[in-house]
């Protein structure tokens, strides 16, 4: 689905990503793990066009989209969910869902909102409330629901379970699986909770200091010596 070739990127003059190569497969969940400051969130932002790309290619559907601005990527059915501020706090839940379908026509939006509400029935009771008054979990549901409304093919999630209780985090993971299995979404996930995230994933990448340290199927990663050491906190990578 997405192929990344020799990507170098960062903020202004500060380079964060070095020569990254990756492949995100269609209809699969790919998880990026790594310690703090390893550039995994920057990787997502870069794919969506929110950082400065110095060199390299991002191939999506046989086209290099490295230079395409964010609002046009949204029209290419790529959705990106930032870690914070991922809903419009002053808009109602209903308006948020509507605005998510901004690029679609009217009937299509209605249909997609129906679908999203079926996946996230929790939102049905709070449609008229302002998103700013929702709980953390509800907000995350809304943000993911908005991605569904958009009819996205690729969904990039930046730490969706951050600051949620373990119980709620589990629900979010279940929803992610549901989105892949029911709608065939291609999902790219960045997670702190690396072990649990890899357990639900198909493929995984481990980033260290802005480079891909190793890659493979999620299972391979889970069983990799280095990963075990990292997740147990034995060695600092």
């Amino acid at each position: 689905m997405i192929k990344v070739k020799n990507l170098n990127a960062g903020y202004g003059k500060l380079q964060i990503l070095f020569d990254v190569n990756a492949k995100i497969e269609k209809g699969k969940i790919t998880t990026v793990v790594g310690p703090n400051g390893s550039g995994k969130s920057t990787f997502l932002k870069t794919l969506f066009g929110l950082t400065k790309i110095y060199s390299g290619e991002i191939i999506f559907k046989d086209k290099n989209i490295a230079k395409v601005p964010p609002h046009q990527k949204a029209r290419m059915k790529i959705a990106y969910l930032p870690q914070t501020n991922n809903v419009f706090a002053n808009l109602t839940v209903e308006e948020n869902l509507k605005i998510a379908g901004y690029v679609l026509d009217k009937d299509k939006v209605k249909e997609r909102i129906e679908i999203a509400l079926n996946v996230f029935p929790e939102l049905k009771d709070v449609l008229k409330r302002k998103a700013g008054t929702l709980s953390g979990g509800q907000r995350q549901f809304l943000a993911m629901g908005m991605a569904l409304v958009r009819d996205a093919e690729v969904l990039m999630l930046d730490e969706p379970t951050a600051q949620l209780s373990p119980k709620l985090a589990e629900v979010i993971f279940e929803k992610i699986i549901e989105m892949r299995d029911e709608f065939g979404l291609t999902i790219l996930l960045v997670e702190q909770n690396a072990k649990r995230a890899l357990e639900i994933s198909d493929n995984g990448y481990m980033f260290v200091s802005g480079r891909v340290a190793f890659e493979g199927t999620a299972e391979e990663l889970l069983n990799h010596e280095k990963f075990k050491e990292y997740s147990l906190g034995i060695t600092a990578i």
Partner: protein
Amino acid sequence: MILEGAIIYSNLLVLLALGLTLTYITTNVPNFAQGSYAIVGSYVALTLLKLFDINPYLSLPVLFVVGAVVGLITYLALKPLLKRGASVEILMIATLAIDLILLGAIGAYSEILSQIVGSTQAKFVFANLDFTLFGFKGILFVSTFVIILLLIGLYLLLYKTKFGIALRASMENPSLAQTMGIDVEKTRLFSWILSGALACVAGGLLPFMQEIVPSTGDLIIISIFAASIVGGLRHISGALIGGYIIGLSESLITYYLSQAFGTGFLVYGKVISLIIMILTLLIAPYGITGVDWRKVKKMLFTS
């Protein structure tokens, strides 16, 4: 009678402050040219009156269009600076420059118009053209009507249309709005056009209550900023609240002071606005709509 004048003034102030707040929210530009926009409107209305004998009330739609163009041009003039990420001080200086250009253009135009008409048009009022209804000035009804129309229009636009929701979304979080596929640029353009249009309409009504000279814009800009800041520069509704607070207090307080201390006090209207503005900035820097009222309630409740 004094209340009548205060309400008229407040209505016009709301029109002006709304535009100021709108462009501040979308582009972060405090626009010092807002007052001169209005005076452009005043002179266009005067021209239509003198040359084509059109009643200023009837020329309001024309003023709306003219103002839209002035707002658009301002935005285009600021755009190179916005694109470069210029600091807010530089943007303010740029709007001061645009204000000066407008002042020069209005002054020059007033003299050209004087030559065409054959009598001086540097100072003028429309008050003599106004009608009365139930013993009240026509401008009271017209300005109130314009405000009601505007509020209904804005409500429908912002809450009932797709573009309006997108506009509110872009105001709150432009980068997230972009990820939704919204072209944020369009919403910025729209806010400047609307801002200019509303100011020009206000300018067409202003001569019904006060004398206009080319530099009147530089005078009313204090009240406009006071209204927007008191209401809160971060919320559109702030302009409405602030406009009435400043408009009413500027008129009423000055009136009562002049009753007590003599008519000399009538010139201190702007000082009243200024004092209210400074007090607001000291107590609630983000204005009335920027205050977390729930927190205030809690504080009062616990103490």
